[in-house]
C-alpha cells in the first residue's frame, strides 16, 4: 500500500526525532543501570566485612572442591523431582476432576477431595515429610514402602497435589461456559466435553502457575534429607560443617537455578499469552 509513497521531509523529520528519543532512552537506561548496580556493588564491596563475607560465601577454592560432590547429590534431587512432578500432575488432576464432577455417585469422593485439599494444603510440608517418613514405617505394616526416598517422595506428592488440584480447578473454571454448551450441543457427554474441550484449554492456561508450584517443589525436595538421603543441599551442608564455609550452599543454589530458569523459559513458550492462546 504505502511502499510507493514519496518520502517527505516531514517523515524524515519524524523518524529523526524518534531516533533521538530512542537514543536518549537507551542512554538513560544505561546510566541508571550503572548507577544502581555500581552503587550497590560499591556499597557491598567496600563494606568493612566484605573480605570476610567473600571468603565465607564465595570462596572459589572451596567451590571447586565441593561442586562435584554436591552435583552428585543433585542427581537424587532431579530423580525425586521428576518422579514427583509426574505423580503430582496426575494426582492433582484426578482430585480436580473429582471436585468439578457433577455426578451424584461422586458425592463421597467430592467430599473427600475437599477435605484432602483443605488439610494437605494447610499442613507444613516438613511436617508431612516427618509424618510419612517416620510414621508410616512405625506402623510396621507389611507391603508399605520403607525406603526414605520413596516415603519422602510420597509426602511431597501428597502436599503438592493439593495445591496443583486447585490450580487445575481454577483453570477448568476459567474456560468460558459457552465452550461446554457447544461441546454438549454437538452431542458430547459431560466427560467427553471435559476431556476434549475444557481440559485442553484449561491446562494450557494454568501452565505458568503450575510452574510456580514446581519451582517451589524443586526446592522442597531438599526436605527429604531430614529422613536421611543425601541430596545436594544435605551434602552441601555437611561440607559446610566441615569447612566452616557457606560456599557449598551457593553451589547447590546454582544447581537449582540451572533447572528452574530453563523450565521457566519452556513454560513461557508453551503457556502463550494472557488468554492462554494456542500457537
Amino acid at each position, binding site marked *: 500500500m504505502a511502499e510507493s509513497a514519496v518520502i517527505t521531509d516531514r517523515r524524515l523529520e519524524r523518524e529523526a526525532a524518534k531516533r533521538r528519543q530512542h537514543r536518549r532512552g537507551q542512554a538513560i537506561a544505561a546510566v541508571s543501570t550503572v548507577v544502581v548496580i555500581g552503587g550497590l556493588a560499591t556499597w557491598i564491596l567496600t563494606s568493612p566485612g566484605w573480605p570476610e563475607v567473600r571468603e565465607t560465601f564465595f570462596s572459589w577454592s572451596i567451590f571447586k572442591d565441593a561442586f562435584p560432590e554436591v552435583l552428585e547429590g543433585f542427581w537424587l534431587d532431579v530423580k525425586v523431582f521428576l518422579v514427583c512432578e509426574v505423580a503430582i500432575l496426575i494426582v492433582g488432576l484426578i482430585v480436580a476432576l473429582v471436585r468439578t464432577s457433577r455426578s451424584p455417585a461422586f458425592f463421597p469422593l467430592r467430599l473427600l477431595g475437599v477435605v484432602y485439599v483443605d488439610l494437605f494444603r494447610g499442613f507444613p510440608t516438613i511436617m508431612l515429610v516427618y509424618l510419612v517418613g517416620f510414621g508410616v514405617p512405625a506402623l510396621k505394616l507389611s507391603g508399605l514402602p520403607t525406603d526414605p526416598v520413596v516415603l519422602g517422595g510420597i509426602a511431597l506428592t501428597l502436599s503438592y497435589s493439593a495445591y496443583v488440584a486447585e490450580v487445575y480447578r481454577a483453570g477448568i473454571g476459567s474456560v468460558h461456559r459457552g465452550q461446554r454448551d457447544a461441546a454438549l*450441543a454437538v452431542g458430547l457427554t459431560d466427560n467427553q466435553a471435559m476431556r*476434549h474441550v475444557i481440559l485442553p484449554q484449561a491446562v494450557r492456561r494454568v501452565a505458568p502457575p503450575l510452574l510456580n508450584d514446581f519451582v517451589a517443589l524443586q526446592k522442597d525436595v531438599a526436605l527429604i534429607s531430614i529422613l536421611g538421603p543425601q541430596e545436594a543441599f544435605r551434602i552441601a551442608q555437611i561440607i559446610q560443617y566441615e569447612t566452616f564455609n557457606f560456599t557449598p550452599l551457593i553451589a547447590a543454589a546454582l544447581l537449582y537455578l540451572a533447572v528452574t530458569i530453563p523450565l521457566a523459559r519452556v513454560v513461557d513458550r508453551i503457556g502463550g499469552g494472557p488468554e492462554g492462546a494456542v500457537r
Partner: protein
Amino acid sequence: MSAAAPPVASSTPVLEIRGVTKAFGERQVLRGIDLAVTEHRAVALIGASGSGKSTLLRCIDLLEEIDDGDVFLDGEVITDPTVKPVAVRRKLGVVFQAYNLFPHMTALQNVVLGEMRAHGAPRAEAEERGRSLLARFGLEGREGDRPDNLSGGQQQRVAIARAFAGKPRALLLDEVTSALDPELVGEVLAAVRDLKAEGMTMVIATHEMSFAREVADEVAFLHDGQIIESGPPQKVLEAPEREETKRFLRRLLEAGRI
C-alpha cells in the same frame, strides 16, 4: 420454495413446544410458550433482547431445564427428567451467537469432533464429510486454520458446518449474525439460506427482519416470555395486529434495522 420441498412425511411436527415456562430465580423468562415446527419449515423468533428467544432455544436443546410444559421431538417428549439429554442433543444442531468454536482445534477438527465422538464415525469418513461441508460454506483451504485466524463470518460458517455435521433433525440458530460486523452478515445468512433450500427444519432467533421475511415460513413475536403474535412473515412483519409488535417493528425501523 415450500411448494418444491419434498413431500411432508407425516403431520407430526419435528419440534413441538407446549406450555413451556422457565424462570431464573425470581425472573420469569418464559411464560407458557406454544410452538410447532413441521418438517422443512423455518420459524423465525423475533423480539426485543431479553424477551426469551435464546432461553427458548437453550431449553429445546436441553442446555437449560424447563420448569413446566413439554417439548416434543418427532412426537416424543424430550423434556421428561428420565430422558437422556445426550441422545436428544445428538438429533439437534445449535449455532450460537458468539460462535463458541473450540479455540484449540482447527476448523476441520471443530466440525468432526461431534461426528467422531458423539456419533462414532470413523475419522476418515468424518473428515471427508467435514471437508466437503466446509467447502460448501465457502471455507475450502481453511480446514487447518484455528478460529483466531478466521474472520467472524468465517468462524460462524464453521459453526454452522459443525452444527450441521451431525445430520440434525432440526437446527437452532441463536442470533447468528448479531456478533458480526455488518459487511460479514451476508455470507452467514447465505449459508443459512442454503440449508433452508435443502429443506432443513429450523428455529431462527434473529434481529434481521429482512432475513426473517425471506427465509422463514412463519414468524413468531416473543414479548415478555410469551409468543403474542405469529403467522406468515408478510402478515406479522407488514400488518401486525398487536400493539407490542407494531411498537417493536417501529423501533427497529427507527434504528435503521429493517
